[in-house]
């Protein structure tokens, strides 16, 4: 009972993994699927480095038991821009210079995606509400806000 098989959709394709009940989603994504875009940092759901979309909703992969992913649609940052073109959010982050060390960037990109999916034309307050749960120790926040505004424009174009 302490191990089980989970079946889920990962970045658009079917996925199966034998996991321990105690394993977190971010751990399983790294160890079983070699996806490192979601990465554990604070281990408390506060920094956003481990952000993953589960059924279209952003979650902290470090606080999300992998067993909960059974039957779900899981999307990681690697799925964005997997084709020729980057996602408009990714393009905007590059154009605005909205990262430095880059460790927190996938989390910010995914949170911005969720923000713009729900609020295509976000106010400053809404940008704050969605992104205040992501930390950037390099302090790139002003450029990130600029990137979010730019991404909103790009998605409308």
């Amino acid at each position, binding site marked *: 009972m302490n191990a089980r098989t989970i079946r889920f959709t990962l970045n658009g394709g079917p996925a199966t993994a034998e996991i321990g009940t105690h394993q977190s989603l971010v751990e399983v994504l790294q160890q079983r699927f070699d996806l490192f875009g979601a990465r554990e940092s604070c281990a408390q759901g506060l920094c956003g480095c481990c952000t993953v979309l589960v059924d279209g909703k952003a979650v902290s992969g470090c606080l999300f038991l992998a067993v909960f992913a059974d039957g779900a649609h899981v999307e990681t940052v690697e799925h964005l821009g997997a084709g020729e073109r980057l996602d408009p959010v990714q393009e905007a982050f590059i154009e605005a210079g909205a990262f430095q060390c880059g460790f927190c960037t996938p989390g910010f990109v995914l949170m911005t995606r969720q923000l713009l999916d729900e609020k295509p034309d976000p106010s400053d307050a809404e940008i704050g509400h969605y992104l*205040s749960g*992501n930390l950037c*120790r390099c302090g790139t926040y002003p450029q990130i806000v600029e990137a979010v505004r730019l991404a909103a424009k790009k998605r409308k174009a």
Partner: protein
Amino acid sequence: MTTTISPGGQVGRSVPRLEARAKVTGRAEYVHNLRLPGMLYGKIFRSRTAHGRIRRLDVAAARAMDGVQSVITAEDVRRVIPDPYYGPAFHDQPILAIDKVRYVGEPVAVVLAADPHIAEAAAHLIVAEYEELPAVFDEREAMTSTAIVHEVLRPAGTFPDLKHLEGRTNTNIALDFHLRQGDVEAAFAAAEHVFEHTFRTQQVLHVPLEPFVSLADATPSSVTIHTASQSPSFVRIEIARLLRWPENRVRVKTLHLGGGFGAKLYIKLEALVVALSLLARRPVKVALSMEEQFYTITKHASTFRIKSAVAKDGRVTARHCEVLWNGGAYADIGPRVTQKSGFTAAGPYDIPAVSIDSYALYTNLPPAGALRGFGIPQLVWAYESHTDLVARALGIDPLTFRRKNLLRNGRPQATGTIMRDAEIEAVLERLAARLDWNRPFDRGAGPVKRGRGIAIGFKASIAPTTSIASVAIHADGSCTLSCGTVDMGQGSDTAMAQIVAEVLNLDAEAVAVIHPDTDVTPYDMATLGSRSTYHMGNAVRLAAEDARDKIAALAASLGLPPGSNLSLAELFRRKYGMQAGTIIGTGSFIPSYSPPDHSTGLTENATPFWMIGATGVELEVDTETGHVQVTRLVNVADAGRAINPRIVETQLSGASIMQLGFTLFERMNFDKGQVTNASLADYKIPGMHDLPLAIESEFVPAEQHGGPFGAKGVGESATFGVSPAIANAIHDAVGVRLMALPLTPEAVYRAIRAAADDPLGEA
């Protein structure tokens, strides 16, 4: 923002980071991601005692746990590394605690297992018993305490000014630095006014979001270390020393770093993973948790007593500075902080008589090292708070007072070194202009009062240090740069590529920059102290020029006239008859430098360049709660000539935001040496809601002679002025002065109540 684009069109251009696509797609390479076949995970068992003799260490239960490969103690480490003490300044830090522990969180044993969960569970089964020893935590007490952290001092021998400490006993002083310029006593005796204040800073943490991680893969005759390190060359030298191996058997590789800020310097986990891999005969990875970062390296708490003599006309005639640095249980690079920062402790002012005493102290706290500013933010906090207090006491406007005393180019700094290419005046004037200092200022209404403040600081570069680079031109004309500078987010890969591209007339985007790998990339002292743009930038420029000269020589050898426009690929084809060959250009750079005299601290060449940063702040104080809202934060710096203006601007705003956290709320709390807030739930760093309402960053037009294309380092400059500018603005708003960081709402509110002669009770 003034920028000039160079003739080649590469320097001065805001090139997007070379690794931009990799970073936004989550595919950037970090050591964090790395796994090797057969790899074991190490989980550290740590001391829970601040100072004690190890009486018993029982690892039997951990060893017996299913899935545990082995449990390693100091005794085991000694089988592969007989003298397992490391450190850049002192060989004082054991790989695992030997005989005694010196701080809570010190590594005592390690469990190895293929499953990190098992390693962690087993580590919980280890039991240690200690005989408690008296401990010392406060840097002021450490000066005279009978609790002695290290029985005997063991300087590493790298630094001449530490040699006199060899073998000393019964002291916690790990370095005393002294500077004596002019007749300080006479100046104080003759002074119209004398002002003396004491300022303190708290212990804070770097918090790179990628916690420390190192992985070693050792054989009996060689070892490869993959590590998130800012100083791969130092790691190689130090590991080779510990193993008594030649350097060529030790290979150190880094990838992108998820932040560094000075934390990932010198040796952190590298000696440990090497010992573990040698013992286990398998690759071993140790990846710290966020909590464990709090037990690894911190920023010095400090106490700074500053005393100034001021003449009737408002000129500062003498200054005495005494700075105590709380270095924690192991020296790390603390003694360098003490000396390198020490000599600028009197500030960017033209003061004829200066005396400075700066002391590095051992205590029973987690070790302190370099953190974005190398001690300078602690000093600027004190001298710029003091500057405002003096100006206020004399009834002189703080800007006017600074102008009157400012250290200008052509004048000697306290060490005697003549200032050059230090745009202190331009930076201050630009800040004043941006703040529109002479306009009437709205002071607020009701319980919310408004205030503004400025502060300016400067920093010398670390010297003398060496950087070496090589540039390879491949047979198709493409180009690869090999340099040991570690890109931890500051954008060095991109800036270095721009320098190569400028020399070789390429697009910066076309230059490949390889990650540091000591088997491949030449020596570099380290990525620290904003030294890379200047030092490595020069080495890279020389390497590119050398490659360019060799290309010209090749063309000449083929009988081509100078200025021939034959493509590089065609040149190689003509020379070698096919697509073949490589041209390698090399560059080596070490600036000139004169070490300070040991007794006076004086030198005519203290630094290859100066970094200047000033910050202006406008803020609101809620007088009923003490809450401070910074409404505007303006950073102005001298960056020389910016190689990549956008990255420079981002470094400035980012540094100021980091310092904002250290100023307003970040603080490691301790209970008998135990950190009580070792997580991001309890140790808060700035998020998006904590920003000033407006942040502006700019660099003044400047040129650093001797710098590559006139450039110099800028990664720390916007940390300098933030803390005192905010304290000065709070004083301006509500008339109270805070002498210790952080400037929490409670501290502000208590000061307001105390000033009203109605102090708030303790409980």
